[in-house]
């Protein structure tokens, strides 16, 4: 850490981890409700559990991205943040809005929440990931504007690196792409268009640029490779992302009432979307091979190298499997999609957030790296979470395939609930793997409480005596 104002990143990172914890708790409850439909009913209906799980996911990722921006932008611009105070106020506003919204979900029936918050005046509620009441949505826009103002002013007064331009540009994109959240026409096709501009536009467009910028920053810092090389790779990755991802949105337009040409355009271009993820893998490992230093923070390096790999598996491979129109005809909206959603969100955006947290938190706490034993805990947590998430993915994939065969094809397709019954074994596996994930998360969080810092002298002595 070079500038004291970077410290405002810390509350963002801590809140992100707390919300991550909450997300997983709701995930476990949702998984249990799959196995016992009456669990916690009527106090916590499945739809509420589910949207608490997914909304917490989005909020903690946004928290982590914002923390990352407040950490990276001053360091890249080589100047203090324009207004650390504004960043701190914004943090509390955002956290309070998130908490109030969650309380609204949990304690007020959704329809009543909609009536209370003016959904009749400007309807925005009800679509996946965008369930927030109108005041929360407006709050999100204000928080984003505050962040953009702060980092853009910092950029203007400081050094203008390509990496900073990419990061700040993609944060602007993130905010602009949120605006269709306020567009919810009665026409379901148009409503779907608007919804996918946000959801697809984020995860298969703009956020990939954020992902690239965060990884680029970590790799510059940890490998000592020239930033020119990193920036060149980033430009290529951005170009391929936009080239495939923008028209690739067609993979959500196949059978919703959109023009038929989307079947071709969506299939072809989205089938190419794995390319930028593959380039990210190549990029990370090329930087590793060209490294000019050995950074003591091994845990952060592990996160940073694993991120593109798991992202490629979850987004590139699992996304590819369900992206061609003839396949999606059978798999649309099954647990195969959920399998893809889990591994992609975790591998790309959860893991890159945990990477930057792993890199920056020790520095924010005044040391270059944590003690080896803290790192061992962190890396153990890493392996448990990654392994559990892969098991969750495989279980959901199995359930999705069974649905495609028994419920979506054949001469005598079975009914939904009959098929769900046959898939119980997969839902049990998912729940157990979920518990595994939860324990990995506890180990990971525990690593923050192991004190001590990396001590070169004692490490060197140990290495010599071994």
């Amino acid at each position, binding site marked *: 850490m070079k500038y004291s104002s970077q410290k405002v990143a810390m509350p963002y990172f801590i809140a992100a981890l707390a919300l991550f914890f909450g997300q997983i708790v709701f995930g476990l409850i949702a998984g249990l409700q799959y196995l016992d439909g009456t669990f916690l009913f009527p106090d916590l209906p499945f739809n509420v559990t589910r949207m608490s799980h997914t909304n917490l996911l989005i909020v903690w990722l946004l928290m982590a991205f914002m923390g990352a921006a407040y950490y990276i932008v001053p360091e890249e611009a080589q100047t203090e943040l324009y207004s650390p105070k504004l960043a701190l106020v914004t943090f509390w506003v955002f956290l309070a809005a998130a908490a109030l919204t969650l309380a609204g979900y949990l304690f007020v029936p959704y329809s009543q929440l909609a009536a209370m918050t003016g959904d009749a005046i400007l309807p925005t509620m009800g679509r996946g990931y965008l369930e927030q009441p109108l005041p929360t949505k407006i709050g999100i826009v204000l928080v984003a504007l505050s962040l953009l103002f702060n980092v853009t002013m910092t950029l203007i007064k400081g050094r203008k690196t390509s990496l900073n331009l990419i990061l700040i540009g993609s944060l602007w994109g993130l905010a602009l792409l949120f605006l269709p959240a306020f567009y919810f026409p009665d026409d379901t096709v148009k409503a779907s268009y608007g919804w996918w501009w946000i959801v697809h536009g984020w995860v298969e467009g703009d956020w990939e640029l954020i992902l690239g910028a965060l990884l680029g920053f970590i790799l510059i810092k940890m490998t000592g490779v020239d930033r020119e090389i990193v920036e060149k*790779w980033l430009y290529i990755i951005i*170009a391929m992302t936009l*080239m495939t991802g923008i028209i690739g949105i067609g993979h959500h337009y196949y059978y919703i009432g959109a*023009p*038929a*040409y989307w079947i*071709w355009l969506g299939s072809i271009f989205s089938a*190419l979307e794995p390319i930028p993820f593959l380039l990210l893998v190549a990029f990370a490992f090329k930087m590793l091979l060209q490294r000019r230093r050995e950074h003591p923070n091994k845990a952060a390096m592990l996160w940073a190298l694993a991120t593109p790999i798991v992202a490629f598996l979850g987004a590139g491979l699992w996304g590819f499997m369900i992206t061609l129109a003839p396949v999606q005809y059978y798999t649309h909206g099954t647990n195969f999609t959920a399998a893809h959603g889990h591994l992609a969100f975790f591998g790309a955006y959860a893991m890159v957030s945990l990477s930057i947290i792993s890199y920056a938190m020790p520095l924010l706490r005044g040391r270059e790296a944590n003690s080896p034993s803290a790192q061992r805990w962190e890396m153990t947590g890493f392996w448990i979470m990654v392994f559990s998430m892969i098991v969750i993915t495989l279980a959901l994939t199995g359930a999705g395939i069974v649905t495609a065969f028994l419920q979506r094809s054949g001469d005598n397709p079975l009914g939904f609930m009959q098929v769900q019954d046959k898939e119980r074994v997969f839902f049990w596996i998912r729940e157990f793997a979920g518990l595994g994930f939860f324990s990995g998360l506890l180990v990971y969080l525990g690593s923050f409480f192991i004190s001590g810092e990396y001590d070169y002298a004692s490490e060197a002595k140990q290495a010599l005596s071994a």
Partner: protein
Amino acid sequence: MKTASSAQPLPGDFAIWVFIFAELLVFGVLFSAYALSRMSNAGLFDASQATLNRSYGLVNTLTLVTSSYFVARATRAIRHGRSAACGRWLGGALALGALFLAVKLLEFHDDFSRGITLSTNLFYMFYLSLTFFHFMHVVLGMVILGFVAYRTYAGAYDANRYTGVETGASYWHMVDLVWIILFALIYVLH
């Protein structure tokens, strides 16, 4: 000299070649999709292709090939340290790139005034989207070339430092290369 030179590295920055190969992969998939979807629609494709004004395609091929040639000359000039000549060749290449775009826009205008859209049929869907996708690559190539030309005029390159020129040139040749295949596929083969 000849034997030693057979092991030269790729011209320009290696990163641009990563990009070029990724682009070639994308275009390769697009070309294959066109050809494979024609398999069960050959009659429709041939009849629709016959309605295109193929002279547009020819003029644009000649334009882009010549533009690519100018860029090859620009690279050659800078390797010999003649940066003024390099700048002129690049300027000429950019002018031809603009001509390509103008002709293509004229052709799009013709198509739209005939009432052609993406929904007209499968051939036109491919025709419009492939040529538009390539159009955007010409635009990107011109941005890159324009940047290189600007740096050339600013004196950034000479006989010992010309990687930037080679980098931009390699990308432009790729844009030319895929157009040559696109031209054959969309305007000629039936």
